[in-house]
């Protein structure tokens, strides 16, 4: 392998890992970071996005619209759940863990009962290209771009839109935001919905590349949690850099020693972070700034 | 001999200079009150002494030892004890248990119970001993917390607005408690607004203003000080 194709390969692998970590984690991170809730039903929102997307493709919609639908449906389901269940638990974040786990159980098994044990896939679009004799999937590049675009859009949403500003205000000093006319309970609903929609987006984007079964969400959950632990509460200060660091660690170790090493690298990252940065990268960056 | 001394104690919060190189001393055996308008930095100063905030600069000496970097519980074990502004009691536990938790450091068995009874008497909480602390009246909560603070047999007692929300009678009774403790040799540093209370207990008063020591003296000297009156009315340009 010559140098330039080796470099491309490393970038491709890192980018691929980065995309996976960012897309799996950012929904979880939004809900955890903004609301302090560990959403154990995260995987099931991913499932929802994937199933809706795939069904939409099967009835003939183009993939981008299908993914949008998957995202939107997951988001709406998230908002609905927030309205009906989650909002009663804001003062009890630990209980919310139990409840979201219950929801996840209902969703997984309900999907199995209603839709059967599996769903036919749609195939990965866009084909392949080759660099230095190696074949690469074009769609993986799309995923990388989607991850970057997601971060960029989230950044715009949180800094440039009215919702984003009100959401950040609500998270920082909730009672003052309320006193300034912000409907904080609506903000919480929307934030939860946004987190669910991001999970749905992840499901929709990965649906063409994966086996579609009711338990597919679990394939994302460990990486999502690890990224959030390493990153801490903030998406931009935490999740994104954490995903970048973990992607380099994972891609490097995987290409050097195989998939297991990559997985163990994630474990070591968690332990190191607990020891050195107990509040994750977010805490570290905020401390440095303060 | 000073029981507590700060040297150029400094604290910034972001862009706010809350405590500005404060040199301050509490002599052993005295009751010293810290007053000042809202936002003068009294509570921050208090938290620095307790170790809840790390100072941006300067040093804290307790009984001649440097405790600037000591953990809060280590300071308590050396003989500092505190009563917070908002009563820091264990609301869901019984009154008796609150005291027991404070006393069980150095007592156990029958002597522990005797000491609890003695404290309950002193705090006028005998009848409420089996109530949940959260169900006490506001004044009683304040007393309970004072009781927990003195249960540690402190050499230096820190009181942050101990009479906030109390009726005048309760305030006066609190003053008597503080005086009784002081008579037993406990040094006291109190942040307080209620000037009647300050007059009742203080041997020395320090006025803090914009994070700096603005004036110091007896209560009469301070009350007579036109500059002090002026800062309370917002008239002095610092």
């Amino acid at each position, binding site marked *: *392998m010559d140098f330039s194709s080796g470099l491309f*390969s490393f970038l*491709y*692998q890192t980018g*691929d*890992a980065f995309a*996976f970590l960012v897309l799996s984690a950012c929904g979880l991170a939004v809900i955890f970071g903004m609301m302090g809730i560990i959403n154990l039903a995260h995987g099931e929102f991913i499932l929802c996005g994937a199933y809706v997307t795939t069904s939409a493709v099967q009835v003939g919609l183009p993939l981008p619209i299908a993914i949008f639908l998957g995202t939107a449906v997951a988001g709406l389901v998230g908002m609905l759940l927030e309205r009906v269940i989650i909002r009663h638990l804001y003062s009890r974040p630990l209980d919310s863990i139990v409840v979201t786990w219950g929801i996840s159980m209902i969703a997984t*098994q309900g999907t*199995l009962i209603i839709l*059967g*044990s*599996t*769903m*036919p*896939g*749609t*195939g*990965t679009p*866009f*084909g*392949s290209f*080759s660099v230095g*004799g*190696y*074949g*690469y*999937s*074009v*769609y*993986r590049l799309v995923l990388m771009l989607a991850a970057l675009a997601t971060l960029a859009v989230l950044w715009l949403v949180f800094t440039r839109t009215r919702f984003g500003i009100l959401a950040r205000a609500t998270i920082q000093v909730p009672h003052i935001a309320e006193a300034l006319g912000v409907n904080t309970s609506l903000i919480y609903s929307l934030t939860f919905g946004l987190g669910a929609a991001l999970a749905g987006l992840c499901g929709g984007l990965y649906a*063409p*590349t*994966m*086996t*579609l*079964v*009711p*338990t*597919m969400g*679990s*394939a*994302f959950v*460990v990486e999502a949690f690890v990224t959030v632990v390493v990153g801490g509460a903030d998406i931009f200060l935490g999740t994104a850099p954490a995903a970048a660091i973990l992607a380099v660690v994972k*891609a490097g170790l*995987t*290409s050097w020693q*195989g*998939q*297991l090493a*990559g*997985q163990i690298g994630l474990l070591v990252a968690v332990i190191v972070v607990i020891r050195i940065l107990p509040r994750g990268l977010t805490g570290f960056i905020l401390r440095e700034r303060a | 001999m000073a029981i507590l001394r700060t040297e150029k104690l400094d604290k910034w919060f972001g862009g706010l200079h809350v405590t500005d190189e404060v040199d301050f001393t509490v002599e052993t055996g005295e009751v010293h009150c810290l007053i000042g308008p809202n936002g003068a930095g009294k509570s921050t100063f208090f938290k620095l002494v307790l170790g809840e905030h790390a100072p941006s600069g300067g040093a804290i000496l307790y009984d001649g030892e440097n405790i600037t970097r000591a953990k809060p519980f280590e300071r308590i074990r050396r003989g500092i004890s505190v009563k917070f502004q908002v009563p820091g009691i264990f609301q869901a536990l019984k009154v008796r248990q609150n005291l027991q938790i404070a006393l069980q450091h150095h007592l156990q068995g029958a002597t522990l119970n005797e000491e609890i009874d003695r404290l309950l008497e002193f705090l006028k909480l005998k009848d409420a001993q089996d109530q949940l602390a959260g169900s006490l009246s506001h004044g009683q909560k304040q007393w309970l917390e004072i009781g927990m603070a003195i249960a540690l047999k402190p050499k230096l007692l820190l009181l942050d607005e101990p009479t906030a929300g109390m009726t005048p009678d309760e305030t006066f009774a609190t003053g008597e408690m503080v005086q009784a403790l002081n008579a037993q040799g406990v040094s006291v540093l109190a942040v307080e607004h209620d000037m009647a209370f300050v007059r009742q207990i203080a041997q020395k008063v320090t006025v803090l203003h914009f994070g700096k020591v603005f004036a110091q003296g007896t209560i009469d000297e301070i009350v007579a000080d036109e500059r002090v009156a002026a800062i309370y009315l917002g008239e002095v340009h610092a």
Partner: protein
Amino acid sequence: MQIRASGVLATLGTLFALSAAAFAQDGEPIKMGVLEDQSGDFAVATIGKVHGIELAAEEINANGGIAGRPLELVTYDTQSDNRRYQEFMRRVLQRDKVDVVFAGFSSASREAYRPIVDQFDGLAFYNNQYEGGVCDANMIVTGAVPEQQFSTLIPYMMEKYGKNVYTIAADYNFGQISAEWVRDIVKENGGTMAGEEFIPLGVSQFSQTIQNIQNAKPDFLVTLLVGTAQASYYEQAASANVGLPMASSVNVGQGYEHKRFQPPSLADMYVTTNWIEEVDNPASKEFVEKWHEKFPDEPYINQEAENSYIAVYLYKQMVERAGSTDHDAIRKVIAEGDVCMDAPEGHVCIDPKSQHMSHTIYLAKVGEDHSITFPKVWDDIKPYWLGDVGCDLTKDNPEAQYTPSDNPKKSGG
């Protein structure tokens, strides 16, 4: 062969008549515990197993039961959870007092319940393709094992595509042991391993693996991937245009990936299976027809469904020949070495030494459009390995699982 089989059948018929008479008064049902995953991770491949058992039981009961006794199923959903296997195995053996249990998909679940079966001296059928090596008199295995699937598959592939082989395998017992088999067979046939990679369970992202494979440039690829997450490999490899022929012992036959995935992600995949619904012979066709009559919504009938179906009939035969459901009596019947039947896949027999089953092995080739062809069929492939390394359940019962690196022959020298 032909003569012998018909002789057996004749004997069987006589036996059946006799025992039917013997059991005539005894209308007490024979209870069969069914512990399979109807929910959770493995449900894709295992709901069909329950249906296979139900179909066989219904047929048997419609024809007078086993030796005149009706067959009664006691079914629990084990939820793909090893703990549920432990709970329910105890329940069926102790509470429901079943005569036999059909249980388990994953090897982990089998290992979870096996100590309990041994403790209560129960009899369990494991109707599943697996990594092989269980030498336990309380277990009867009807699924295919590596020596049956790899001793056929790998030489064929090496002959057709070349001797440079790359294996990717799930990083657990099944994958490790199967990979060891592949490695040994490749060496025996004068080939080389271009590479070997083990994938932790639950991993669903394969970009790096795909690159490693391309880097090693093998002639073909052996995929021993397990679980729905790992099955994502095929889609991802196809979209990176890896384009290598693939060989596998697990896919298609269990998870019918060729039906679920969009063509051509599984194109050029060769699988050795002891049966799938595409198998084209009269017995098989009849079986599929019967099945769809009873379960019109079944998405696919896989090999484990057929194994489970066969197992019920084999059990029927054993009980009728033994004249009772007593386990020792049944084992004596097995020891005779002629517990055989004509199954949808072909003729199968239980090997007395290992209590595993011989199989007809079909080489299924997945085409561009995911249609199945069978370039080759091997009849009567025996589960020889356990016997070779010293497992002989007619003599003693070690209640152990052997592996190529850990077995009596190896430790014996």
